[in-house]
């Protein structure tokens, strides 16, 4: 069955300023797609349109899963996003955050599942601390827990290794490799190390 992400004639203009026009890409199953471009080229905007967070000026993004095209609401269940301006609830603990996001997605929640995910992103033993007290690197790891919680088909990463130390970078590597085996990774980055994973790239001028 066909699994892919298709970007068709995508354009975005902010009031009177054009960001990009007529982008056409097909990202096939089990691949890594990297968006390149200097600061302000529209990488983040492109990813946000992909996630359905903001509308495109024209064109569309189609998600096909098992040969079926997804509705905007079904897309949401298949996307995990890590992005610098995405924040989690600082007044809640890591476990409470995961509990909330499971609940709001309509997924069952167990403490075991939370522990498993927190261990995976290297936050073992810190699950009952408030996210607001975390260091920036731990917050970045916590975002991975948020993005992987519902086991999405598409992982969207905006500057994936921001604030991360060597161990954190290794963690991102393993996440990307694992995701490639079962779905799609879409990244916006300029780090050569991450670009090297790309099966396909797009350069935004």
């Amino acid at each position: 069955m066909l699994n892919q992400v298709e970007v068709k004639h995508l354009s975005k203009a902010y009031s009177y300023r054009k960001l990009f026009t007529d982008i056409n890409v097909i990202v096939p199953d089990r691949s890594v797609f990297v968006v390149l471009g200097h600061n302000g080229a529209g990488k983040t905007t492109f990813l946000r349109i992909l996630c359905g967070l903001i509308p495109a000026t024209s064109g569309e993004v189609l998600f096909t899963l098992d040969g079926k095209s997804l509705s905007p609401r079904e897309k949401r269940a298949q996307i995990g996003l890590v992005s610098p301006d995405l924040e989690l609830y600082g007044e809640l603990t890591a476990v409470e955050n995961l509990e909330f996001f499971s609940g709001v997605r309509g997924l069952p929640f167990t403490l075991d599942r939370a522990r498993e995910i927190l261990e995976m992103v290297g936050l073992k033993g810190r699950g009952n601390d408030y996210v607001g007290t975390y260091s920036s690197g731990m917050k970045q790891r916590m975002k991975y827990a948020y993005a992987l919680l519902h086991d999405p088909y598409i992982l969207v990463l905006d500057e994936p290794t921001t604030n991360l130390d060597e161990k954190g970078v290794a963690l991102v590597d393993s996440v990307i490799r694992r995701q490639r085996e079962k779905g799609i990774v879409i990244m916006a980055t300029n780090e050569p190390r991450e670009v090297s994973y790309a099966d396909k790239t797009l350069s935004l001028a």
Partner: protein
Amino acid sequence: MIWQIILGIWMTVVIVASFLYMPATQGLGETGRIIVYHVPAAWIAVLAYLMAMVNAIGYLRKKDIRLDRQAQINAELGTIFCILATVTGAIWSKGAWGWYWNWDPRQTSIFVLLLIYGAYFVLRSSITDSDTRARLSAVYAILAFITVPFLVFVIPRVYSSLHPDLINIPQRSLDMDRKMLHVFLSSLAGFTGLYVWMYKVQMRLENLLYKQAMKREG
């Protein structure tokens, strides 16, 4: 150009006729002449607000920014005519009932209408991004009309009000002197023409401003 001149002459004739050709009314006396201005102003206010509503719903469906500009212009014109209708109404109320303001259902409803559009303009002026502004103000306009519709359109027509009814419901006819009717209908047509003209001028202005901004941004 020719249309503007005809409209100007038309309105002048209506104004003169409302004082000279039209007779004073039974009971209301000389104050009755205000009907020539009050009712058409109220009619245009309702028409323009209704158009603004249609534009707002259209915007949410199609996300075409031109519809938002049309909604704004209609809301502005509606407000101008609504203020005119309120003021002429208060003057007439003083003449007919003896008080400028009595919170009669008609007066309450027109007051709430003005409040809603006042808030609508405040909302618009507080958002800078044009798409967000269009979206949020459209939602507000629709919400206001869903929660307050009976207040504005239904109540005054159904429940007891001191407001005169223009149309005699049992006979389904206009109870009006022939000469008065002539002036009244001419005024109605004149006001409608005025609205269409003002709308077109505003639309042209807005389109020019939009083009200018496009040019500036390259």
